[in-house]
């Protein structure tokens, strides 16, 4: 068991949660470089989990009419249209005008130059950075299927007062709807803005990584349906190896912008159970650049509380002792 149970790497996350003889940790590797934006993941998830349809809204954000992850969208495909070539060195990452933190908090798709839903109007005729003529197109249309990260250190479950949120033997984080009382503590605790309450019953809902399916050896519905294997399900260690090889291959192919997100056990949440290969900065996809488990400082806070309490008790004791002398 790690010394700090609220942050840092934890290679045996299920064992830490008291699961004896736990199976290997399972997760998702979503390789967005092969995503075709079909949204099969969204529908397969809804069909399997009987999630309600949640509104007919044309958002104006490219082909994304889901908008964000929520109680009724456990998978969300983001669409980002950019004037950049697909192959080439890492793009300019200044992202002028993008309030990344605000965007991340909203969990929404952010267009490259911000200001949605207004369209991009070129400053001069022609397209592309090289002042190309009409008919020249250097476009990227990034598509990425987002999902609950099943963090190594999941603040949602740390703050859950009822034990509704729990860590499964597969290392995933699941809401037990028969326990949830709708207190909503978990909602602000999530550093990714994933977990959400349904307005009608107040309970919190999110991806279960198809806990029921995985329990009988089936893969989650979204990964099963994904036409191009953009969503891959498997043992986390194996997925991390596969992802590293994929990044290397893409770099070799000249796609210098490929990078992993959420794969690192040293990051602020101890690494994600569901991690991603991205082609741009995380905030471009509406993902927080440096998420930290909101309960990270809990042990330290408790330590301070302990010290304070000890000091107070010591002072009280000293008072009595002093009086006696």
């Amino acid at each position, binding site marked *: 068991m790690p010394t700090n149970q609220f942050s840092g790497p934890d290679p045996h996350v299920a064992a830490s949660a008291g699961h004896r003889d736990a199976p290997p940790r399972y997760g998702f590797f979503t390789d967005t470089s092969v995503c075709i934006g079909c949204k099969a993941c969204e529908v397969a998830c809804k069909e399997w989990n009987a999630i309600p349809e949640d509104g007919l809204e*044309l958002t104006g954000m490219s082909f994304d009419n889901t908008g964000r992850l929520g109680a009724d969208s456990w998978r969300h495909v983001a669409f980002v249209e950019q004037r950049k070539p*697909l192959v080439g060195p890492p793009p300019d990452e200044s992202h002028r005008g993008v309030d990344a933190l605000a965007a991340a908090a909203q969990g929404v798709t952010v267009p490259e130059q911000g200001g949605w839903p207004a369209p991009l109007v070129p400053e001069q005729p022609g*397209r592309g950075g090289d002042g190309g003529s*009409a*008919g020249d197109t250097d476009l990227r*249309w990034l598509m990425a299927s987002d999902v609950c990260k099943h963090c190594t250190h999941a603040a949602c479950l740390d703050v859950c007062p009822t034990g509704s949120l729990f860590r499964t*033997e597969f290392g995933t984080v699941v809401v*037990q709807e028969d326990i949830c009382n709708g207190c909503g503590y978990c909602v602000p605790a999530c550093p990714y803005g994933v977990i959400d309450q349904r307005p009608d019953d107040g309970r919190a809902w999110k991806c279960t990584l198809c806990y029921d399916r995985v329990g009988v050896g089936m893969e989650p519905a979204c990964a099963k349906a994904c036409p191009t294997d953009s969503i891959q399900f498997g043992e986390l260690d194996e997925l991390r190896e596969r992802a590293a090889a994929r990044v290397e291959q893409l770099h070799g192919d000249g796609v210098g912008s490929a990078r992993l997100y959420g794969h690192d056990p040293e990051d602020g949440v101890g690494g994600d159970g569901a991690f991603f290969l991205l082609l741009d900065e995380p905030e471009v996809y509406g993902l927080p650049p440096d998420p930290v488990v909101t309960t990270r400082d809990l042990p330290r806070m408790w330590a301070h509380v302990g010290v304070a309490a000890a000091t107070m008790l010591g002072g009280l004791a000293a008072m009595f002792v002093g009086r006696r002398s």
Partner: protein
Amino acid sequence: MATPRWLDWPVFRQLTGPDRLGRGAAAVSRETESLRPRVATADKVSKSICPYCAVGCGQNVYVQDGRVTHIEGDPDSPVSRGRLCPKGSASLQLTTGSSRRHEVLYRRPYGTEWEPLDLETAMDMVAERVIRTRRENWQEEVDGSRTRRTLGIASLGGATLDNEENYLIKKLFTALGIVQVENQARVCHSSTVAGLGTSFGRGGGTTYLQDLQHSDCIIIEGSNFAEAHPVGFQWVMEAKARGATVIHVDPRFSRTSALADLYVPIRAGTDIAFLGGIINHVLSTGKYFHDYVVNYTNAAMLVHEDFQDTEDLDGLFGGFDREDGTYDVDSWQYEGVRVASAAGKRSVDEPRHPGRDMQSSGHPESHGFGGPALHGEPLRDETLQHPRCVFQVLRRHYARYTPEMVEQVCGIPREKFLRVCEEITSNSGRDRTTAFAYAVGWTQHSVGAQYIRAASILQLLLGNIGRPGGGILALRGHASIQGSSDIPTLFDLLPGYIPMPHAHLHEDLNHFISSDAADKGYWANMRAYVVSLLKAWWGPAATEENDYCFDYLPRLTGGHSTYDTVMAQRDGICRGYFLLGENPAVGSANSRMQRLGMANLDWLVVRDFSLIESATWWQDGPEIETGELRSTEIGTEVFFFPAAAHIEKSGSFTNTNRLLQWKHQAKEPDGEARSDMWFIYHLGRRIRERLAGSTEPMDRPILDLTWDYPLEGTLGDPNAEAVLAEINGWDAEGRPLSGYDDIRDDGSTSCGCWIYCGVYQDGVNQAARRRPHREQNWTGSEWGWAWPQNRRTLYSRASADPEGRPWSERKALVWWDEEAGRWTGHDSIDFIADRPPSYRPAPEARGVEAISGVDPFIMQADGKGWLYTPAGLVDGPLPTHYEPQESPFPNLLYPQQRNPVRLANSREDNRYQPSGDEPGAEVYPYVVTTYRLTEHFTAGGMTRWQPYLAELQPEFFCEVSPELAEERGLEHHGWATIVTARNAIEARVVVTDRMTPLFVQGRTVHQIGMPYHWGPNGYTTGDSANELSSITLDPNAHIQEVKAWTADIRPGRRPRGAALRRYVEDYRRRAGVTETTGTEA
């Protein structure tokens, strides 16, 4: 003894177990403890196939307590490997959701509301109306020739139905004398059949999805592959992962472009100029595959000395009859060959209305399995130097298709064009192969068949046909649209691409055979296929003495395509109409005209899942809103029958791989929903019962029809396997035939569709085979059954050199095994299995014996792939760029603006707009193209009602570039009105960089993209893009031009009520639109 309750208390577990923080094992609830996936308790898992596009993904259907509880991908399928797109993933909602109707509805003439009607009464009423309308509108003769038909009844739909259902529809309706039998294949891929059929001898894609993984380069053009066929696209991604280059050529940057290595924007309607440019590049740089071209194509054949090319005649070929608007094709023929009548006049009996009449009867589509017949031996020049050899004719024809011309016509910068040329040529040859994938972006043009011909020429020159990773993949868009072409619910075809007989040409069986059969190849056996079909339909009544009931077949006299039918409805000729899973009020061109046609009917039968627009136009359609129609003045009687879903019936779909896959019934349909098999069978039974005892000659075909199928289940559905067995055929002893070699012309065999012969070999349903892909090679030859004869790659003889050795180890597919005396390899060869490469036929050889060891195209009359089509197409032997019917530009390549023999029909409800330099063209200045989205399907009947799909694309929209938005003041997320001479619609505006302005002929042109899925009914609603399109048809296949037309766009919503028509009229006036606009040859 039960565990004490307190032991189950989480806090107790937390304090006593290893989970001291209570965040894991200790927190497990009772419900979690007992959690099981619902599929784990299913009573049965039924194997099915997805009902949406033609990728044909396998589905597992889970049934519990008689209810379908879940549907997901079948991991065993070699095509889909367990994956499903969003539509396939929504199959549970489609089949079990609340949007489905389960009761029959009736709308009486002049009624304003639906009324309930019980199924039995409704069936009796329809049977009575069919009999009455048929009798009142019977044509025994036309112009003195026997026609034995009725134009009073038409049907539309079949591509979403099973092969067995299509078979019974065609069989019953043909026996009733109904010729206007059509389905979605007309409006989607009919030009494919004409284009591929005349090039290679068969009208199906030459390769299959899984084989794309072996491509070194994939050109996707005229297709939004990733969006319209998402699960098939995995094979493009496989190729990409192996290092292939993927190129997407399209007017708009779609989700397909996003995954391509190179995206090439093109002006809609100019693909022949682009492909012609590549052909010119290949010929002028000498990058063609010489040995392949000389041996396997008709490059060496000499063309008749009278032939005149477009180079000689300003864009026309020789033989054009300006008055008739047709070509006399005689001069296009090879030297030394007599043309078969297939394409024109030179038959034994001179037709009375040769040109237009023959042309309009859609004959080119009959080359879907067997190229045009030739009689005689063409002269050859193996050096390819003779000025009249095909190779030199080709070179001259395409010489003017230069990179500069491509840039000027298509708007593709020269460098980008040359990069495409470089990718294609460097990825073709002995060691490498390039594949083409296309769909309706190529087919739906007034020169649609020639688009496909252009790609065929290129692929033949590069030696890419018949080889692994090569070929041309026609991406089909309905679950069984390939099947509904093979077993055609099409007016011009009988099963297996046998043409429907023509009244003036085909007076008896001998004339019919002699005018169409070939001397050489399998098509020489045409008589056997026709006789066996007649035996399948009329059984013992079909005898040698009565020409096997050949006279029972109704005759064509011209075009009876779905668009001809609409005009016949408007003109009061067609009185009754069946819609069997098709929604023309949204999906067909000029949808207003479709509704006006239906408003003129006596009766209409709609079979569907929900109340689609084609069922409700009389109540709340757009013309009710504008006041053009009033419900109380519409006399059309409407019957709505709820249809069974794919999981509620057994039967086969034929996918885009030409692969038949069997679906097993998971449960019977609820309520009054029935399969189309049930509907057609019991309709036929009732009609036969009512006519029993009739002595009228017109009733003999229906009374003599074999219509006796075992019924099963509680609903009395005909047994689908019994129908499949009839399609396969049997011999005199009733034993199933094992392949079309077994079919005889003496009446001893029966076969419902000769190209499907073998699907029931040994009495086993071969289409139901499901050996998992992991247990066989990539061809998946033991999964389902592909026509012909379970071969996966067509023309695979061409994958080996003339001596029978693979062109290279890397591209080995089949090869000659000298020791065994047979061809062997990875796939079942598409050739005569024991014919050695060295075989040369004797001069007097006929039929199959006449196929030499180096003739890979065994259905062609000369055994070769056709760079040049000396016969078979009515608009030219070589693809030539013409501008679309409506274009903002003059034709830069020739003075001839449009396809001179296109079928244009200017009527008050189908007016055309000025083009190019004509005054008024500037009133409709923008190019429009339509397309599909991943989240929706065709006319929306299977997706707009599904909440899970509707929420993903909740509104109809148009896509415009930022530049166009600025030019017209359009606001992103706002509204726009788009207008043509037909109608005006409104759409939400999506301003996106993905739409690129193009620089064409010295100026910028803007294109507007619109998905065509929406209509006023359903869970998500919107205007239909097809309100704007015109009916302008390819003359070969009668397919409509909806991928390129012109329009204007303005900000804001469209006028309402009567003002809408005034708005359209005002535009017409300003553009000077008259009856003759756009009708010049």
